[in-house]
């Protein structure tokens, strides 16, 4: 599965550079530490006086310790660069992250819309009653061409019942009577509508 792809020169050289840095830093840490341990060995025969040798050994250990720390710091920088490269160029994981995010956003949107739809259904019921109350009161100022919601529902129900059964013709007539009387006497329509519909509904 791991076929060798022809990478662009920049990416390939970048990855080779990472490899080189890794090898160099690990080698630096190991070599410098080994040399420190070797230098720590006390030798009886020295070419210069003991104080001078001690001073030299001290300075050498200091430099090698600094080299180890520098190599460690360079390795941390390498890890940071690898993280950056991974985030930008690791396409399988980027695709996974994008699809997961899309899935979460879509589920949130669906949940929001579902709740809005259920809210709409609940409010429609209350709005029906409110409109019925309002348009049958003496405060309403609607014109006959503009159907209120309750009237629209009643007419839709009457059309549906007339299609399904013939026993509702009396109900239709009473609906029409109710509609006619609504213009004349709005307050009575409320009672008539409730009285007739409760008896005529199958």
């Amino acid at each position, binding site marked *: 599965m*791991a076929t060798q*792809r022809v*990478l*662009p020169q*920049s*990416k*390939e050289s970048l*990855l080779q550079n*990472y*490899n080189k840095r*890794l090898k160099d830093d*690990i080698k630096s*840490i*190991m070599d410098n*530490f080994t040399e*420190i*341990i070797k230098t*720590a060995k006390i030798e009886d025969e020295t070419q210069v006086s003991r104080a001078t040798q001690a001073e030299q050994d001290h300075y050498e*250990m200091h430099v090698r*310790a600094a080299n*180890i*720390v520098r190599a*460690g710091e360079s*390795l*941390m920088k*390498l*890890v940071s660069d*690898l*993280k950056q*490269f*991974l*985030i*930008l*160029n*690791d*396409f*399988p*994981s*980027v*695709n*996974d*992250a*994008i699809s997961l*995010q*899309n899935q979460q*956003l*879509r589920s*949130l*949107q669906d949940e*929001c*819309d579902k*709740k*809005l739809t259920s*809210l709409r259904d609940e*409010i429609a019921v209350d709005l029906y009653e409110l409109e019925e109350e309002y348009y049958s009161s003496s405060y309403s100022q609607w014109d006959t061409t503009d159907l209120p919601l309750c009237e629209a529902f009643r007419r839709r129900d009457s059309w549906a019942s007339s299609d399904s059964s013939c026993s509702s013709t009396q109900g239709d007539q009473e609906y029409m009577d109710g509609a006619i009387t609504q213009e004349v006497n709005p307050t009575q329509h409320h009672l008539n509508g409730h009285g007739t519909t409760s008896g005529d509904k199958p």
Partner: protein
Amino acid sequence: MANERLRSLEDVEKEIATVLQCAGNIVLELSKDKQNASFLDRQLVQFQSSVNRVESELSSQIRYLTQVATGQPHEGSTYSARKDCQMALNRAEYAKVKLGDLGRTCEVMLEQPQHQQQQI
């Protein structure tokens, strides 16, 4: 998953710190007049294992990147799903505003007859 790779790189960072810590402890122990041999052995073993782990983990990450990386930039985005979600939240907010208005209107209308009755 990318998170696992990033977490393993963070573990590598901790291992590098362990390497330096072990090296320092070994040199510190060697500087004493009387050294604890078992402590030195433990620290040395930990130093070597940490160095090997760092090298192997970073090599495997670089190998994986060599296999996976292309020269192209990634052009995927979550913009459309985010926009749709934002619109859904806007719809909900709008419905909330409208319901608030309706509620206030009903309260105002309910207060008015009470005022009229009080005036009478």
